[in-house]
């Protein structure tokens, strides 16, 4: 453990410093996300208004607001750009410099990214939760914040990050075969956006599709933690969902290791 701390924490620090150097980039990222949330908010408000009622498939408008903002924030928090990173390093050949370091390749990517995840947690998630709770208080007149659910949310979000990281890692290794990832990267992001329920809550989807999607790893990526936070799951279901996340984390870990072993043999470094 101490060894991990010593050799990988520097990667995390470097990741954080990078984020600070490109802070405008980060601010743009945050504001872009917020604008997207508001667009979705007005869209769903129109849906609720045309429905005439308060609740829609068990979601009140207040629920919907919490869902939209929190699921967006969660997907930003757990967003992993490791596939772009690998893709870029393979395209320009700088992956060779990473392979020269006596560290685990995937852990070095992960810790660099954890630096930015940590920053996002502080400047994005905490203010968002505060804002949402104030909104909820104004809308309903009750304090509905539940510490237990919040802690479970965090735990589930950590698992969600691991899943998101591993999925992107597997995807990034495709770059060893195709050399340039940009195009299919866009495809991947929109597919994940849909399958993970960050675009439309999975609860709104037809039953058959919903059940399928809920078992897939993508649903665990932002839907599960947000539903836990909102108290939509009972105890039994929480345990089941978290268990599912753990199973997916382990499976994807194994898969990424397997792909790595095959990919590293195929590596050809481009450009000298």
């Amino acid at each position, binding site marked *: 453990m101490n060894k991990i701390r*010593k*050799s990988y*924490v*520097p*990667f995390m*620090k*470097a990741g954080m*410093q*990078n984020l600070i*150097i*490109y802070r405008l980039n980060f601010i743009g990222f945050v504001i872009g996300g917020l604008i997207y949330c508001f667009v979705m908010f007005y869209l769903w408000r129109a849906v609720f208004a045309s429905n005439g009622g308060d609740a829609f498939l068990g979601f009140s408008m207040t629920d919907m607001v919490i869902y939209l903002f929190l699921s967006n924030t969660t997907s930003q928090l757990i967003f992993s750009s490791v596939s772009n990173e690998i893709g870029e390093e393979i395209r320009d*050949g*700088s992956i*060779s*410099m990473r*392979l*020269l*370091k*006596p*560290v*685990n390749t995937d852990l070095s990517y992960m810790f660099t990214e954890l630096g930015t995840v940590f920053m996002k947690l502080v400047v994005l998630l905490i203010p968002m939760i505060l804002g949402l709770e104030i909104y909820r208080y104004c809308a309903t007149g009750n304090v509905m914040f539940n510490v237990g659910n919040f802690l479970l949310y965090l735990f589930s979000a950590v698992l969600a990050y691991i899943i998101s990281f591993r999925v992107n890692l597997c995807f990034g290794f495709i770059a060893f075969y195709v050399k340039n990832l940009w195009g299919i990267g866009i495809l991947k992001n929109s597919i994940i956006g849909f399958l993970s329920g960050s675009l439309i809550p999975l609860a709104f989807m037809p039953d058959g599709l919903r059940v399928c999607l809920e078992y897939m790893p993508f649903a665990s990526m932002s839907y599960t933690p947000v539903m836990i936070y909102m108290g939509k799951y009972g105890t039994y279901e929480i345990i089941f969902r978290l268990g599912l996340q753990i199973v997916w984390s382990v499976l994807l870990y194994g898969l990424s290791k397997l792909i790595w072993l095959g990919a*590293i*043999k195929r*590596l*050809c*470094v481009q*450009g*000298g």
Partner: protein
Amino acid sequence: MIYAEHLRKEFKKIVKEPGLKGSFKALFKPLKETVVAAEDISFHVPKGEILGFIGPNGAGKSTVIKMLTGILTPTSGECRINGKVPQNDRKNYVREIGAVFGQRTQLWWDLPLQETYLVLKEIYEVDDAKFKKRMDFLNEILELEKFIKSPVRTLSLGQRMRADIAASMLHSPKVLFLDEPTIGLDVVVKDNIRQAIMKINKEEQTTVILTTHDISDIELLCDRIVMIDKGKNVYDGSLHELRENYGQTRELVFETDNNSKLTEEEFRKGLKLNENDLVIESDKNNFKVRFNSRKLPVGEMLGYTLSLTKVKDISVKDADIEEIIRNLYRQGEKSDE
């Protein structure tokens, strides 16, 4: 220390016909072609030696270095360094080596240089006292103080290269791989870098494998050279031997008032040399003689020319590495026939 046995590396490459039409064709029916980057390379290097690993562009030098450092997996053949096969346990193996690729950097692009060294210190588990001593040593020979607080992306090429060399030496590696560490640098920086390599080799018995196109790098640093071409070994031995065997061509340049009398035929007749061993080029004031110094000592050629004309200035040029490679290459072609 370092054993490379029959290393071979093939790549699959997609061949595209020229033009937009070709691109479309390649999109749907890619035509694959196998490229052999290294065909059959073998050599070994004892501990503490500086080996010059040379060859023309595209000979496969970088590919071999990448196999030796564990980045690439050989298609066939084997390499062992310190008794370890790089590909088998990359993480532990790379602890013992340092590497610089002239075209790339291992420095953290956006961070101040100092930060990279601190990160490396942790990764390689260098303790504080050793780290301080090491940094002082590297500062002294590579003069890093002036830019150690600047972000790496703002460094000049010479500064960056010095910083990269320092980064590769920080953890006192047993083997150092330097792939064109002096490319594109001015004389002063080149000299700094050579000093650093020499010092570390002398003081710590570091084994160094160096690729370069600069003959003075080899002359100043290397005990031995291995030359490859088209993915195969063509020469293995000392520089002196190489010169003796292949680099016998010398070039004399005379500055004269009037050289119209000096013709190639006259020289050939007078010195009894054929056209393979003597070539003359002349323009208005300069008169260039390139000849085989084994057939005729330089002194005799000088005396002969001086006896024919009045000379203002003379310069003697040694065979350069390109010339030697050309010679070797020509011989290789002959033996193929």
